[in-house]
């Protein structure tokens, strides 16, 4: 099956972020970057589909400056077959601008299946996948936790709901955005890393769409107040209970 997986390079989220002097972005100095978690699930889902069916080709696509090549190589080291970088100086906030660039690249690729992560873990927009589907005129199922395309004609997808799940189907080709639960991304073996160095990585200019939405201001949440010690023995309990009821409102 010919599959495309869109991949975003995101900072390690387990970091204490600082705001850049511009006030509209995080300060990237000292940050570590990796593939967005959900994109990892999508890449793994694609690999498993083709491993099960045999043959096929999986293309990783990422939009951004040259540093995204590192993330694309990681995808290749997991076992994806080739990569395309849509070169742009920066990744705009506006998902539509990105979606147009991706759609332009995907349009002529005759892909059976186009996978996205449910969202990028840094921007949490959840918009690019569905927009791409719209631009390509393809059906879209979002936040999929189980995926079956074994008949080669239809997508059978499972989506988790609050306390339930639903099964959704649509014909191929289609766009699917992947939630966690599909499969844990594999750890690239050294064999995979070495093979990835020789796999094709094509660089093309990104044909970004118009940017209409921009970040006006970014702020960190207020520092958490320090804890309070009310006392050291049973005498402190009534006060603790009172505060939990009145202040914290958890009782």
């Amino acid at each position, binding site marked *: 099956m010919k599959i495309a997986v869109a991949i975003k390079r995101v900072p390690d989220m387990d970091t204490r972020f600082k705001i850049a002097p511009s006030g509209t972005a995080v300060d990237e100095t000292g940050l570590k970057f990796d593939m967005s978690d959900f994109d990892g699930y999508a890449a793994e889902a694609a690999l498993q589909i083709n491993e099960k069916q045999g043959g096929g080709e999986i293309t990783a696509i990422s939009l951004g400056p040259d540093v995204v090549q590192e993330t694309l190589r990681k995808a290749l080291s997991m076992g994806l077959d080739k990569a395309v970088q849509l070169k742009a100086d920066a990744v705009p906030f506006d998902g539509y601008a990105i979606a147009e660039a991706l759609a332009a690249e995907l349009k002529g690729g005759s892909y059976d299946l186009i996978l996205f992560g449910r969202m990028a873990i840094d921007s949490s927009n959840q918009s690019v996948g569905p927009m791409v589907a719209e631009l390509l005129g393809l059906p879209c199922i979002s936040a999929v936790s189980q995926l079956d395309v074994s008949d080669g004609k239809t997508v059978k997808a499972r989506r988790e709901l609050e306390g339930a799940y639903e099964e959704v189907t649509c014909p191929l080709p289609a766009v699917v955005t992947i939630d966690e639960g599909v499969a844990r991304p594999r*750890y*690239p073996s*050294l064999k*995979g890393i070495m093979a990835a160095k020789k796999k094709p990585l094509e660089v093309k200019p990104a044909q970004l769409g118009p940017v209409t939405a921009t970040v006006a201001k970014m702020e960190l949440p207020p520092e958490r107040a320090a804890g309070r010690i009310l006392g050291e023995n049973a005498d402190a309990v009534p006060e603790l209970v009172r505060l939990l009821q009145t202040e914290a409102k958890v009782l």
Partner: protein
Amino acid sequence: MSVSQLVYALLFTLAMGFFAFSARRLVAFLRLGRPDPRLDDVGTRLRNLGLIGFAQTKILRERGAGISHALVFWGFLVVTVGTVEQMVQGFWPAFDLPHLLPSPLAFVFNLSQEIFSVGILVAVSWLIWRRTVATPKRLRGEGKGDPVHHGEAILILSIIATLMLSILVESSFELLTPGPDGGPREPLGQPIARWLSLFFVGSDPITVPTAHLVSRIGWWTHAVLVLVFLNLLPYSKHLHVLTSLINTFFSNTSGPGPVGAMKPMDLEAETDVYGASDVEHLSWKNLLDGYSCTECGRCTAACPANTTGKMLSPRKIVVNVRQRLLEKAPLLVPGADAARRGAAEQAAAGTVADAAAKVLGKKLLDDYITEEELWACTSCRACVYECPVSIDQLEVINELRRNLVLTESRFPEELMPAFEGLEQKGNPWSFAPADRGAWAEGMDIPTMAELQARGEKADVLFWVGCMGSFDERAKKITVAFARILKAADVRFAILGQEEACHGDPARRMGNEYLYQVLAKGAIEVLNGYEVKTIVTHCPHCFHQMGTEFPQFGGHYEVIHHSEYLERLLADGRVPLEQGGDKLVVAYHDSCYLGRYHEITEQPRAALKRALPVMTLVEPARTKSRGLCCGAGGGRMWMEEKDGKRINVERTEELLATGADTIAVACPFCMTMISDGVTAKSAATPVMDLSELVAARLREPTAAS
């Protein structure tokens, strides 16, 4: 030429010819292994050969079997002189070595032959009894997939016994025949033969022809059996008779080179196979180890994983290497076995799916040695340390682990977060790198960067390690050690946020790629500050940076804090309070100190200096025999599902000493033993050396 000479010459030529064939075949099989130069530092190799080989120092680590074996071994060396004499006699019957020697030497020769024949006979009888009746656990196998060749062992022991008996029969009956001058023979240094012969000279003396006949039967039995024995060896586990001395010479387990260092891998090499999944990916020396194992099982008896009920048996690993080699090699070595070779070619051509194809389709990994066994290893090195013939079981385990991780990306899922943490955060638990130096807040400890900015230099870099930086319990060790350094006026600094794991856990878990990335990163930082001396309280950091970093251009003097504390205390640099509590302390040896670096006395000496009124007690297994805490080899990050928990086993031993304090010198041991104490619902405190010392620090009286 007499008929007997002719017969002997024929037998001898046949036997030697067949032996040469067997030997060539075995050497050709070894050549399937990867190259591994082992001719450096011949001096150290000869020393190992002398001590471990000829002086049998490792064998003698166990009393009963050790003395018996040493007796058989030394006996063999002596008796072989007689055997050579006999071989010459086969061609030239008149040859008589004692006759050619000056009489004192002839006396010594005859006496030595007798004494050692009897010695071997006694030892072998005891060994047969032990194998058939007593059967200690280590001589029994692990069951399926771990064959123990009992029958072979008893056959060989019986042959040795018969050989010795035949020597005695020959010489005692010869004494009853006339000498070359026709007169009666005078025994020369032959008290035993003389004594035996006296049984036949009493009231009904044996006739000369009968005595001659019996003596000749003895001679022929020995002569033929020696040739049979020689040709049985290459096809039995007793191949070790021929290879173990060679193996000891070529081994690196007691040097030359850094002991316990894992081999570096060339990650740029064009290959599809990283590590080893089958015998041809191992080094020729690993294969020679297979030949040299006689299945004594001392490794397995010392293995913490095995003795607590895990699947791993280091002996089985080595025996599996030999089995697989002997199964596969005949198909790969031209001429080793022409018929089977033909079958292999056919199989390769895909024409016949026969037995050979089946053999080639198998692998050492999975078909002989399972993942489960490999991941059970704590890399404690007890197996390597105990092996009497210097086999390196651990290297095979490590090479197979490398294959699992680097080629197949196959490992316990618990390791994924550890790998990711190491890669992303520079520590295996994914703590925020920014918090690495948090323990030092308010302690006025400079970082290397701060010193450099001020144009100053530290004498010593205190490498804190991931445990010491992030683990709540281990941070107390760090603080205690830093307090001592300050009290002793050591000019030291830390790296703070610039410190990141050196990759040792990744290497031990088979992830050489991640290891090299981390190690090279750490070396770059250290070289950037021109660091010369490093002190650390983690034995794993100590081993990695001191012993393995030179592989990548990191050359530092790395000192473990146990040794450093001992020096500071010996020099009187640590101001201590007088007196103190009468503690009873049991010290637990860390594997990476005790067995990897033979650091067993320094920590104890440090304890004695710091706590003069303390009583030091030793657990049942201690020093070079110390039982692992269970955390090494990446086991720290894996579940321990099978059998008894190793840390509980170790803690029970430590508690059984009656100690009121358990001392450790490793943050990993600290975690494992503390958990063990909790599991046993005991309250015995577990303290690091530095904490015990720091508790006795004399605080400056006037804090100005």
